[in-house]
């Protein structure tokens, strides 16, 4: 019962809330829909924190997403031992990069007075859960080896069962607590998304790649 609540109920609740509130906030509070940059106030530590954090976490998130979207492809990649080694190595290094970056970012906000003045309570909350999540993830990856392989056979079936609305938690209930904690905390971060600056993730400006150089807005119709 408890497991069902954690691995079926909570994921659904957090995703539904995240989607609904994200849309609601976009429509009612477009002004707040971004991550408030503090680069103007402090830029050296930001460089050493923000760059490794973002590039690290993007690769790590992709490594979670690709096996889920293309399980066949991922299975083929990890089937060979050498390739599995390489995947683990890449994964661990990017996870380390993200963790170090995040720690620098947190220290920056703690120690730099200017940066601290523009840090809100939701920001601290988010930083805490993100650090917890990457810390747990790093731990799981280190102590329960070959995650790039077992993730495909344990977490993906569970996530897929949630997506197809036929929840099946048989593959995850037997997992060690640490791994379970990582899963649940992941959904906590998803839940936080619409309530914090994490919404900036949804505003990544892809359209910049193809839009025209200049933007002119006319009031008249038909221009």
């Amino acid at each position, binding site marked *: 019962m408890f497991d069902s609540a954690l691995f079926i109920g909570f994921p659904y609740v957090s995703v539904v809330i995240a989607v609904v509130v994200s849309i609601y906030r976009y429509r009612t509070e477009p002004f707040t829909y971004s991550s408030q940059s503090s680069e103007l106030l402090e830029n050296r530590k930001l460089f050493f924190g923000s760059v490794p954090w973002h590039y690290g976490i993007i690769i790590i998130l992709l490594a979670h997403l690709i096996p889920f979207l293309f399980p066949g492809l991922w299975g083929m990649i990890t089937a060979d031992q050498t390739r599995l080694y390489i995947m683990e190595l890449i994964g661990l290094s990017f996870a380390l990069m993200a963790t170090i970056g995040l720690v620098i970012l947190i220290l920056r906000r703690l120690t730099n007075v200017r940066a601290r003045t523009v840090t809100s309570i939701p920001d601290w909350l988010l930083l805490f859960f993100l650090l917890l999540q990457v810390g747990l993830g790093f731990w799981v990856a280190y102590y329960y080896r070959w995650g790039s392989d077992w993730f495909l056979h344990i977490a993906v079936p569970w996530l897929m069962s949630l997506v197809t609305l036929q929840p099946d938690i048989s593959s995850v209930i037997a997992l060690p607590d640490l791994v379970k904690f990582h899963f649940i905390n992941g959904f906590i971060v998803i839940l936080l998304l619409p309530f914090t600056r994490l919404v900036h993730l949804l505003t990544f400006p892809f359209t910049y790649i193809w839009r025209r150089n200049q933007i002119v807005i006319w009031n*008249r119709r038909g221009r």
Partner: protein
Amino acid sequence: MDIRAHVSMVFHLDKCIGCHTCSIACKNIWTDRKGTEYMWWNNVETKPGTGYPTLWEDQDKYKGGWERGKNEKIHLRLHNRLGGLTNLFYNPYLPTIDDYYEPWTYDYENLFNAPEGDDQPTARAISMITGKPMDNIEAGPNWDDDLGGSPLYARNDVNLDELSEGEREQLNEIERVVFFYLPRICNHCLNPGCVAACPAGAIYKRGEDGIVLISQEKCRAWRMCISGCPYKKTYYNWASGKSEKCILCYPRLESGQPPACFHSCVGRIRYLGVLLYDADKIVNCASVPEQDLVAAQRDLIQDPFDPQVIQSARANGVPDAMITAAQNSPVYKFVKKWQIALPLHPDFRTVPMLYYVPPMLPVLAKMENGNYDIAGLDKENLPAMLSSLEKARMPIKYMASMFSAGNVKIVEEVYRKLIAVRIFKRAQKVKDYQPAEVEAALAQGKTNAEEVEAIFRLTSLPTYEERFVVPPLGREISIEALERPLDRKQATGFGIRSQTPKREF
């Protein structure tokens, strides 16, 4: 031909006394909010000097504006499209608050509340960012005003790079020290770097009048506009997490008033009027080789009396009142008809729509035998107030670096005309020039008595209505195409929210 109208500006630097009234008028209206304390949408800097923010003209440092590539096309100096997206997490070319200054106030309360003691209480400086005391203030607004700290600031002016070592040393001799003021607002460029650099597409140009604005709701704090603008005239509000910039007081313009900085200008150096321009020529104008930039920009501006131009403007929906305003525009006269107003740093290739009449170079005075020898007074028998261009105290190359992308000939032509005006009027009033000398000056300035009188009149004696020809922007009419005016009736016309704020208790 794609004729559009643009509300444009001329600043007559000869008349600027550096009083900063414009800056204060702007600050009191627009930037006295939290997060904007350090912003000066209008600022006045001393030249030579490094300006505000420090070294804004140094595009090797800040990567603002456009660059002409080997294929003779222009691209943003800051980034290409993909590169822009990869720099979102950290913009390597963003100035920090210390490149402007950390804003502060004083702890005035302490003067009243300090406990009795042996010493006078003091009002310590308090940072307006952190709220903590600042013991060492290292920069402030107009820190290098009137050449203050010139060994540090004036010497590092980017425009001095073209000068020889000797010329630069001359500028530091106490008897030859020279400076002038450069008031700056957003240039509302035709090819703005900020618009092109914004990943979110939040910055736009208003089609009807050319004012460049940042949508506060679309801005996502990627802060590329600040680097993209070579004039550093977009600013990041650190408290709201949005970029902000000069809005050319559009709420004032829409009610028929000139912007606050124009209105309040003590020296009456500012002119505002409509220019008609050919939008088809913008990209080409920004792409020509450096020495042709000013000519291309003049070519872009169209004659508002030309029937073909009027026809094309009408076809584009430019209202007749706007065309009439363009015909009366003082800006058109200074920039296109008389060709004595030049864009600031056309080499940034953003095609700025704010033009400057360069200042008359001050007289050359050098101490000799304990007396000031006003240039050539004895030797050449010229009146004291006029130095010849060749003996200009501020090297003409310096002016060319600022106003004509290094093309000395263009700046010289402007000065010859300005000198002709001076000599002509002086001969008229003081009568210490021979008619032949006046004729020679007119010929050198490629001008005539009639034009000189017109330049003199608009320079020295213009009325309020002659300086500011504000067209009816007709916003209330054009807005009807997008919104039903009655929807907003009885609502609070205030703030940026789409809904009227309500009281909860």
